[in-house]
C-alpha cells in the first residue's frame, strides 16, 4: 500500500480528464445512495446514512489528530454545535419560501460548518499557541461546556431536546459531504501545502525554523476539522429531526477518536474504513437473529471460551511474530498459525467453562455483548498493531496497479 511518504504526487497535465471522471463517479455514488432508499430495509438505510456521517467525523478528526498531530478529544462538541446552530435557524427562520427544503439544507450545512468553524477558532487559537497537550484538556472541557449550555438553555430545548421541524432528509448529501471531506484532506496531503501540517506533527521547533507558522498551521487544521464536524452535525440534526444533548456525549467523541486511532493516525483511508467498520459492527451484531427468530442468545461458556481464545490468539500472534517474522516467516503465516492455536485452545476450554454450575445455564443476548465485541476488537488491534491497521499508509490507484502488475509478473515467471 502506498505510503504518504512514498512520494506519489498528483502529476500536472492530463488533469481535468481524471478530475471530471472522479467528480462524476462521486456524484453517481451519492445518487446511488439516495436511490437505495425504499429498496433496502429502513433500518439498514438509516445505518448507511449514519455511517456516512461517521466517515466525515473520523476523517475530519484525522486531519487534526493524525495529520497535524494535535490531540483533540472533543470532536462531538463541534458535531453538536453544527446540529444545534442549524436546528435553531431552521425552527426560527425556515418557512419554505423562497428556498425549498433541499437548498435550505445545503445552506444549513454551510451554516453548521461556519458555526463550528468559528467556535473551533475560538477554542483553538488560545490553546494551539502553546506546545503540548493543552488542546486535549481544552477540548475535553469544551465538550462539557457545550453540553451544559444546551441542557440549560430554554431556547435550545434544554435537556428535553430540540424538535427540528420540518424534517429534511437528504442521504445523498450526507455521503457527498463525506466524499468532499475525504477529497479535501487527500488533496491537502498530496500537494506541497500538506507538508507543513505533517512537519508540525513531526517536529514543531524544526518546522518553525523552516519558516512554518506553526500556530497558524495548527489552527487551520483545527478549524477545517471542526467545520466538517459542524456540517455533519447539521445534516444529522435534520435527518433525526430531534436532537438532545445526550446524543453528543463524550462517548461519541471517544468513538470517533477510536476510529482514527484504529484506522491509523494520519491515514485517510484508515479512518474511512475504520469508521465504516466500527460503526457497522455493533449495528450488524444488533440485527443477528437466533433460530427461533428472536435475538440471538449465546451460551455463557461459549463467550468465556471465545474470550479465552482471543487472549491465546494475541499472545501467540505476538510471540510467533517477534520470534519468527524476523527470520523470514510471512506475517500471514504467523497470524494464521496463531488463529489455529487459538481455535484449538478455545474448543478445549469450552467444557472447562461449562463446569462452573451457574455458568452452564446462563446465556447472553447478542445485544448486550456487542459492546464487549467492540471493545475486544479494539484491544486486539492495539496489542497487535499499535500504529493502527493502516499505519501511515494510504490507498492509491498507483498501488492497485502495482499490485496487478506484480501478480502478472509472477504469472509470467
Amino acid at each position, binding site marked *: 500500500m502506498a505510503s504518504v511518504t512514498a512520494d506519489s504526487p498528483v502529476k500536472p497535465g492530463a488533469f481535468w480528464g481524471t478530475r471530471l471522471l472522479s467528480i462524476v463517479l462521486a456524484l453517481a455514488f451519492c445518487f446511488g445512495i439516495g436511490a437505495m432508499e425504499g429498496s433496502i430495509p429502513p433500518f439498514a438505510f438509516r445505518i448507511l446514512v449514519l455511517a456516512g456521517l461517521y466517515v466525515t467525523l473520523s476523517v475530519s478528526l484525522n486531519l487534526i489528530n493524525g495529520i497535524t498531530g494535535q490531540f483533540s478529544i472533543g470532536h462531538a462538541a463541534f458535531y453538536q454545535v453544527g446540529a444545534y446552530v442549524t436546528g435553531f435557524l431552521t425552527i426560527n427562520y425556515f418557512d419554505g419560501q423562497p428556498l425549498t427544503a433541499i437548498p435550505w439544507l445545503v445552506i444549513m450545512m454551510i451554516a453548521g460548518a461556519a458555526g463550528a468553524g468559528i467556535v473551533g477558532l475560538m477554542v483553538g487559537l488560545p490553546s494551539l499557541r502553546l506546545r503540548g497537550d493543552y488542546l486535549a484538556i481544552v477540548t475535553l472541557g469544551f465538550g462539557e461546556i457545550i453540553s451544559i449550555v444546551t441542557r440549560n438553555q430554554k431556547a435550545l430545548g434544554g435537556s428535553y431536546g430540540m424538535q427540528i421541524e420540518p424534517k429534511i432528509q437528504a442521504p445523498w448529501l450526507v455521503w457527498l459531504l463525506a466524499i468532499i471531506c475525504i477529497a479535501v484532506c487527500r488533496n491537502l496531503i498530496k*500537494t*506541497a501545502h500538506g507538508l507543513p501540517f505533517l512537519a508540525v506533527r513531526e517536529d514543531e521547533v524544526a518546522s518553525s525554523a523552516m519558516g512554518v507558522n506553526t500556530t497558524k498551521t495548527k489552527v487551520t487544521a483545527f478549524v477545517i476539522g471542526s467545520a466538517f464536524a459542524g456540517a455533519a452535525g447539521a445534516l444529522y440534526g435534520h435527518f433525526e429531526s430531534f436532537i438532545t444533548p445526550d446524543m453528543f456525549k463524550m462517548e461519541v467523541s471517544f468513538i470517533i477518536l477510536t476510529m482514527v486511532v484504529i484506522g491509523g493516525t494520519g491515514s485517510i483511508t484508515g479512518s474511512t474504513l475504520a469508521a465504516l467498520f466500527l460503526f457497522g459492527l455493533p449495528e450488524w451484531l444488533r440485527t443477528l437473529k437466533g433460530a427461533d427468530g428472536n435475538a440471538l442468545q449465546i451460551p455463557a461458556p461459549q463467550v468465556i471460551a471465545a474470550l479465552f481464545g482471543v487472549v491465546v490468539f494475541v499472545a501467540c500472534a505476538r510471540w510467533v511474530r517477534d520470534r519468527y517474522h524476523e527470520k523470514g516467516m510471512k506475517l500471514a503465516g504467523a497470524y494464521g498459525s496463531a488463529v489455529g492455536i487459538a481455535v484449538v485452545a478455545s474448543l478445549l476450554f469450552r467444557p472447562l467453562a461449562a463446569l462452573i454450575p451457574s455458568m452452564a445455564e446462563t446465556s447472553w443476548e447478542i445485544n448486550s455483548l456487542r459492546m464487549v465485541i467492540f471493545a475486544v476488537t479494539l484491544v486486539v488491534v492495539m496489542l497487535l498493531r499499535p500504529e493502527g491497521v493502516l499505519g501511515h499508509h494510504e490507498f492509491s490507484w498507483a498501488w492497485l496497479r502495482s499490485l496487478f502488475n506484480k501478480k502478472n509478473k509472477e504469472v509470467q515467471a
Partner: protein
Amino acid sequence: MSEDGMTDLQEEELDRADLIHSEGGHVLSLMDATIKFGGLTAVNKVSFDLSRGDLFGLIGPNGAGKTTCFNLITGVYKPTSGEILFHGKSVAGMKPNQIAHLGICRTFQNIRLFGALSSLENVVVGGFLRHKTPLLSSLLLMPSAVTETAELREKAMHLLEVMNLADDAHTRSRDLPYGKQRRLEIARAMATDPSLILLDEPAAGMNPQEKEELSTTVRRIRDEFNKTVLLIEHDMRFVMGLCEKIVVLDHGEEIAAGGPDEVRNDPKVIEAYLGEAV
C-alpha cells in the same frame, strides 16, 4: 499569475531582495547581545559582525553559550538586552518563522528532521516558505497548486543532488544513516533560500573522511550559492581549516576573535580549552 498585478507575496519577495542587496554593510551584527535565564547569564554582551560571503566559526567549550547564540539569532529566544541586526534590520524578538522568511536558516545540533517524511519531502518543507498559491487552491486541487508542488519537488531534488542524497530521495528520513541525516538537514536549510545559513555542529559524529567532504560542501555553499555561513563546531582542526574568521565564547562571554592563527595562539583560548590541542 498576471504580469503587472503584483501579489503581496511578490512584493514581500522584492522587499527581501532590497534588504539583501541594498545594504553594503554587514549581513549579521550582534551588538552586546545578552540573555539571562533567571540568575544565569547564558550569553553576555556578545558582539560580532558577519560580512557577505564570510565563513565564520563560533567555538568554545561545552556550555559556552554557542547554541544559545544560535537560538537568539533564529528567534527561539528573545535577547534580554542588546541588538541583533540582519542586513541592518533588527530581528530581536521576531518569531523563528518570520526570521526564516527574512533569510536566516539553521540546522540543529541534535538532528531534528521530520522523521516520517521522506528526504525529498523534508527538503520541500524547507522550500515551501517561498510558496505562492493559497491554501484553498491546494484543498481544491487547482492546477496552480499541482504545478507548484511539482516545481518545489524539482527544486528539492536538485538540492538533494547537490548534497549527494539523490538516491535516498524517497527514503524515510528516520531510516537514513547518521551522516546522511546531517547532510539532509543542510539541504533542508538551503531549500529555504537563506542568505545566511547557521550550522550547529555539522561535523559531530563524522569520521575524518566525512569531515573532509563536509568542508568541501560548506565551501561550495559559500562559493557557488553565495551564502554567508556561520557555524558552531567542536572539532578544532575542522574549524581552523575551514573558517576564515572565528569568535571564541566561554561562559557566555566573548574571549577572543580573529583569524584562525590569532585565535589559536590566544592565551585565553588555550586556558579555556585547557589541555586540548588548539
